[in-house]
């Protein structure tokens, strides 16, 4: 059973909402790629870590949504810094492919640390569930709007930091031209630290946003890996505005694909999107390394 043309507005709206959430971890992946030049698969399990950190804050400590989301960001960010420093940084001299493979092993290790601590049971946040609002023949959930707001704020803050602060400009400089940046005295190691903190923090926040609508378990982050990759690639690996565009595009494309394909071919759509972009316009929608 496939959707009908009259469903298109709702499908687009759904796609925008899911795409907005996807933006957050996609930016994380693309930012690490921009500065450190490799796709860091561990983004997926940092999303899981963040989701569980937020869960602990919300359910165990009783914090409301926004402070819990902040906790998700901070905890995932710190774990991101530590995991990079301990595991990935020492391997960088061995080449980017080795580091990439190591990030896969790191992803598995982190996922299982979460499983060790929490088991496999599905857990839900302690937040009220609300019925959708309806307008103009469409429906949207208040939780979705709240998630959208959080995503917008997070991305907005990131843009502000990147363009208005010294440290943000330093990050962009390193991403753009590491040699020149080094000549100008920018400490690459410090920047790497910062990027990992921010990027993995965003991944953690993204994981929690996904969990808010559903429930969380150790595989939460892994399930989103393909979509996050597709979003970053479609937008242009290394481009943060690209990740935003890519995430929205992927979100909408997955929904619209239901017009022609049965819903469980969704993953194929994600890969087709990646394939099309990479073979026809490898720099992505906005081109690599544009901030």
């Amino acid at each position, binding site marked *: *059973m496939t*959707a009908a043309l009259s*469903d298109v507005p*709702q*499908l687009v709206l*759904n796609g925008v*909402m*899911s795409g907005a*959430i996807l933006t957050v971890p996609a930016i994380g992946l693309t930012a690490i790629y921009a500065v450190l030049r490799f796709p860091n698969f561990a983004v997926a399990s940092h999303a899981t870590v963040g989701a569980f950190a937020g869960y602990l804050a919300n359910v165990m400590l009783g914090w409301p949504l926004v402070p819990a989301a902040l906790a998700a960001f901070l905890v995932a960010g710190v774990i991101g810094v530590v995991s990079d420093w301990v595991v990935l940084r020492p391997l960088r001299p061995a080449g980017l492919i080795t580091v990439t493979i190591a990030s896969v092993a790191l992803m598995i290790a982190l996922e*299982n640390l979460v*499983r060790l601590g929490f*088991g*496999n*049971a*599905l*857990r*839900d946040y302690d937040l*009220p*569930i*609300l*019925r*959708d609002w309806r307008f103009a023949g469409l*429906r949207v*959930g208040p939780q979705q709007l709240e998630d959208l707001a959080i995503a917008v704020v997070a991305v907005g803050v990131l843009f502000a930091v990147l363009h208005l602060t010294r440290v943000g400009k330093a990050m962009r400089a390193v991403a753009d031209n590491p040699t020149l940046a080094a000549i100008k005295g920018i400490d690459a190691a410090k920047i790497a630290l910062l990027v990992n903190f921010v990027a993995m923090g965003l991944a953690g926040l993204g994981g929690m946003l*996904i969990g808010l*609508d*559903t*429930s969380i*378990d*150790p*595989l939460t982050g892994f*399930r*989103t890996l393909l979509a996050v990759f597709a979003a970053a690639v479609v937008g242009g690996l290394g481009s943060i505005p690209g990740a935003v565009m890519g995430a929205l595009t992927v979100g909408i494309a997955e*929904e619209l694909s*239901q017009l022609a394909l*049965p*819903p*469980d*071919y*969704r*993953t194929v759509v994600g890969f087709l999107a990646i394939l099309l972009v990479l073979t026809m316009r490898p720099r992505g929608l906005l081109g690599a390394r544009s901030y």
Partner: protein
Amino acid sequence: MTFTVSRRAALLGAAALAAPRLVRAQGAKLQLGVLTPLTGAGAFDGPRMLKAMQAVAADVNAAGGVLGKQIELVVEDDETNPEAAVRAAHKLVDVDKVPVIMGTWASAVTMAVAPVCWESKTFLTTVSGADTITQLPHQGYLIRTQPNNFLQATKHAEFIIRQGRKKVFILSIQAPFTVPTQKRLTDVLTPNGVAVVGSLIYDKDKTSYRSEVDQALKASPDLLYLNGYAPDVGVVLRDLYRADYTGAKLTQSYALTEKALQELPKPVTEGVLTVQPSADVNSPAYAAAVKRLGIATPDSYEAQATDWISIVVLTIARAGQATGTAIRDTVRQITNSDGEKVYTAVDGLAAIKAGKKIKYEGASGPCVFTEIGDITDCKFRFNQVANGAFRLVEVM
């Protein structure tokens, strides 16, 4: 330090693989194999089945064990992956030399592991639902406590008719049970005046099913048949609530467990009907499982796991030996006999000791098996969620 030597040696070579067996060989133990998903897509269900088996084993051990030995479960993770499961099965069969493997969940895993079992004359018990499983040439080394799709769909459809529903929409994940269940439901419902107004297969890994829910609700069903697993059904239920769906919802008991009821918000689960294979309404076996597990409403898998180990233990006691072939040859003397009814392994062992002929009636049903290892029939227990807890609707 024996442990360090074993660990390093195990990682380095064949000879040392024998070392851990020294650690285990204290006192006579009866080792039974468990192969169940502890990681991967089935990871939500494996640990629960294992817990049910551990609970029965603990009871039996406290009462003196079987054949004078204490039961020890040797557990391996099938990772919900057939390739990994086959390796794990080889380890259980060739290294631990267990007479039985219990606990496979995913149909593809069971299909892959079954030849390893029957070729090594190891008995296999499973919950996997694919019809093709019992049709394999397993020579009797396989029993499945899960009713096949035909039986399930028939009884579910009869319940839907009795509930007075008129328009049913089926939401499924992609699995071996999807098409046969849909077909049988339609075949039973349609001549009885209930229309199947549509069906839809969704991707089980999505984080939102709004669009799928929209499609389903477009057909204005008054009952949604949710044929998925716990993670995805949980999300579907949430999205149904958000979409303001007020009709009936029917799903398998393993897709909405008692634990999940504690996590999901009450408005989301209110009124949901769950179904599981069952013995009679006042089944002492089910009541015993309730008490043993400390759960008010054990689900289908927990009940089936309870029955596997109980049947296996009783069969071993009856046969006087613990080999796969002995279990294969003797099992129906416990399950298909007309002897005195017993409802727990402990009671059954006592009866066997007293020389009596027994018939085990399980928590998941009468547990009578056909030649090819399917259950012949069972009742079905229908529960409904009211204010965050299950209450029994009927057993039919």
